[in-house]
C-alpha cells in the first residue's frame, strides 16, 4: 500500500482512464433513463439538459478511449455499462424533475472532482508515460473545464426553479 497520490505507471493511468470512461457511460445511460422513465413529459429545458449531458459524455468517452488506445489498454464499451445502469436504476432513480437535476449536478461535480484528482496525480508523478504528458493533461483539463461549466449550468437551472 502507498499513500502517494501520484500515477505510477502506464497501467495505473490506463485504469484511471477506464474508470473515467465508465463514469461518462453511467452519466450517458442515466440521462437516457431519466428521460424515458419520468411519468410526465419532462419540461423542454430539462429534456435539453439531459440530451446535452448524454452527448457531452459520449464526446468525453471518445476522447478517453483515444488515450486508452494509445496506452494499448482495452476501452470499456458502452454496451457493457448500459445494462449495469439499467439493472440498478430502480433503486437509485430520482423521484421527480428536481431529483433529476440534483442527480445531474452530482454527475457533473463527481466528474469534475475525478478529472481534477487524476490531473493532480499525473502532475505529481515523475513517471515517463508512453503517451505525451502535455497532450494527456490538455485533453483531461479540457474535459474538466466542460464539467465545471456543467456544474454552473445545472446550478443556474436549479436556482431559477426555486
Amino acid at each position, binding site marked *: 500500500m502507498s*499513500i502517494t497520490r501520484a500515477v505510477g505507471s502506464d497501467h495505473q493511468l490506463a485504469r*484511471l482512464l477506464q474508470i473515467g470512461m*465508465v*463514469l461518462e457511460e*453511467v452519466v450517458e445511460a*442515466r440521462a437516457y433513463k431519466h428521460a424515458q422513465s419520468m411519468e410526465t413529459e419532462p419540461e423542454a429545458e430539462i429534456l435539453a439538459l439531459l440530451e446535452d449531458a448524454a452527448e457531452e459524455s459520449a464526446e468525453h468517452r471518445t476522447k478517453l478511449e483515444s488515450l486508452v488506445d494509445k496506452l494499448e489498454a482495452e476501452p470499456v464499451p458502452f454496451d457493457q*455499462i448500459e445494462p449495469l445502469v439499467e439493472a440498478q436504476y430502480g433503486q437509485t432513480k430520482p423521484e421527480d424533475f428536481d431529483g433529476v437535476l440534483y442527480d445531474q449536478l452530482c454527475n457533473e461535480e463527481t466528474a469534475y472532482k*475525478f478529472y481534477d484528482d487524476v490531473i493532480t496525480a499525473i502532475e505529481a508523478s515523475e513517471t515517463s508515460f508512453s503517451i505525451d504528458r502535455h497532450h494527456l493533461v490538455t485533453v483531461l483539463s479540457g474535459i474538466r473545464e466542460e464539467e465545471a461549466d456543467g456544474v454552473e449550468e445545472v446550478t443556474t437551472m436549479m436556482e431559477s426553479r426555486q
Partner: protein
Amino acid sequence: MNTSDQYLKVIYLVQQVEDGPASTGRIADMLDVSPASANEMIGKLQERGFADHEKYKGVSLTEEGIVRARDALQTYCIIERFLIEVLEVERFREEAKTLETVIDSTVAERLDTIIDRESQCPSCFAPEADVCELLECDAVESVDSEMAD
C-alpha cells in the same frame, strides 16, 4: 481518498486484527511510510479528535474517527468490487490499493450505482484476509490459494 482517511482506515483495520490499540510500527508498515511520518500524522489525527495516542500502548480511534474510517473502508470496498465486477481485474486488491489514493468517495459513490454491494458493507470486510469476505469470484479463490501456499 486523502492521506488522513487512509491512515484512519488502516488504524481501524489494525485495531480489529490486534483487538486493541494499533501500534505505530504496524500502521507505518501497512502504509509503507516511516515511523516518524506515521507519528506525525497520528498526532494530527489526535488534534482533530479522530484518534487517541497513548505512549507504549498505541492508537485507538475515537467514535468520530471510527465513522470516518468506516466511510474510507467503504470507499475501498466499492473500488475493489468495481474492479472485479465491472472491469474483471484479477489483481483487484493490488490495484484497489493504488487507485484508492486517487479515487474520492464521491466518485466511488457513482461507481457504486452499477455494482452489487451488500447492505452490511463495510462490516463484511475481513481485516486479517484483507478482503471483503462476501466477494465470490475466481480472483478471490486464487488469492486464498496463494495465502494458503
